[in-house]
């Protein structure tokens, strides 16, 4: 996967919230990986659903799309696809750089 930076422009009003928000998403990735290990599709679906619901509001539209994809894969109990999407989310979080504008 690419390691090129992804620049996201975020509303300056949210500046104080963003570090905690991104930290919570990194924790989500850890939880998602643990759920994948135990094949707990219900929890996978639930975490994917939450990420879908919250990402776009903060300006991270691709994060919402990946959350929706994880939710959908978990619903179909497709662990291979779910793992691929969790990896993409991890990669996205590594590359994302926030600019306040």
């Amino acid at each position, binding site marked *: 996967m690419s390691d090129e930076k992804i620049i996201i422009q975020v509303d300056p009003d*949210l500046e104080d919230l963003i570090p*905690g*928000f991104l930290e*919570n998403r990194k924790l989500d990735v850890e939880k998602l990986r643990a759920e994948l290990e135990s094949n707990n599709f219900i929890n996978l679906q639930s975490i994917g659903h*939450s990420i*879908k*619901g*919250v990402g*776009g*509001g903060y300006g991270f539209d691709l994060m919402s799309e990946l959350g929706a994809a994880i939710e959908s894969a978990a619903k179909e109990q497709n662990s291979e696809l779910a793992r691929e999407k969790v990896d993409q989310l991890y990669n996205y979080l590594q590359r994302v750089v926030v600019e306040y504008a």
Partner: protein
Amino acid sequence: MSINNSESSVKILIVDDDVDVLNLLETWLENDIYKVKTCLSGLEAVSQIGIYAPDIVITDLYMDGMDGMALLNQLHEENPLLPVIMLSGKAQIPEAIKAMHLGTSAFLTKPINKAEFMETVRRVTPKLTDKSILNEFTKNIIYRSKEMSDIIEMASLVADNDVSVFISGATGSGKEVIAKAIHEASSRRDHRFIAVNCGAIPEQLLESELFGHEKGAFTGANVKHEGLFQAANKGTILLDEIGDMPLALQVKLLRVLQDFEVRPVGSTKTYPIDVRLISATHKNLEKAVEKGEFREDLYYRLKVVPLDIPNLASRVDDIAPLAEHFLAKFSKNNKQQAKKFSPDAINYLSSMPWPGNVRQLMNVIDLCATLSKNKTIPLSLVKKAVHDDPIHMQTLREAKQAFEKGYLLSVMRITHGHVANAAKIAGRNRTEFYKLLNQYNIEPAAFRDKKNVEKEVH
């Protein structure tokens, strides 16, 4: 940032089990000067309601423990006018429609768009001080009394909200006028308002009238018929005299209100509907529930916002403006010179008991205007008109004729003007049936054009 002073003290309670959603919405709202409190669960929200007294509640739909719909029910038991915005990560239209009918002011899907969210909050912000909205609402309602003023304010607040309104009041007190005003003040105003008098339609035909029927559903049903719920789609339906609805049909109505879909008689298919329901009755439905004549679950489903219209005699301040309004209307309609009542005539009108309420007052005023030769209507003439029209109670013959006409109109609507089928349903031969139609000046052709089918249902 565009905000007016009335919004600056609006208190909002946000409920979501996701702390990042709470932080985001809180930041958006507080930067727009709203006051915000956040809760991580429905139960926590319930414990905060009495203490914080929010003007608006924003809640997630899917939460562990008490979900958004259960929270909405509990909040509206205490205060049916509290605006509630529901958020959901799943864009499911039936859920959204159901939430709207259960009294949600708005339904937004996640991820939430800031502009749409802020616009929605502004839209549902209580408009208690917005007199222009009240003026628009009351332009067709004549009143001066405190009793009616309270009802009008309540009705105007619930107008642009799909919550079920239940209007009670004696015959002739103006229930349909209020229902129509609610429709006109709502976002459904560009769609149809259909009033159905459940007591005037025979039991066997009422189901077909409301929900429609398939071709061949019963003898005489040779054409598929779209019911009034479907005809009123996106608009408002008033079920007047709901207390007269047979128990068997009450079950079907309840199902329609729960699922927001109708199943025509004889059909295996259901059709989604999006209709605002207003119900009305002159009966004491609580007593009917106690006697087992009206379903308790339907009663509570209909009575989310109750409006009880007082008798005319108990709102004396309304009599003079109503009398003047009806007099001016009569003069205008009949191209007469403008007339007025003498002061003692007005005092006399204001002191009468009016058992037939506003409708009786209107009849008396029309009679006064017809009989009067002069510009000023004297007390003697008013006394005569009141005496000649003591209650304007129908004779038995008039009541039978009104029922017969209502029956004929229903059966003609259902058969789309097919006289042979209508006669079959009515159990008459064609010749007899034609005679009846002639007697009431009912023209079968008027029912053959679909556009003419709805009209008024009495």
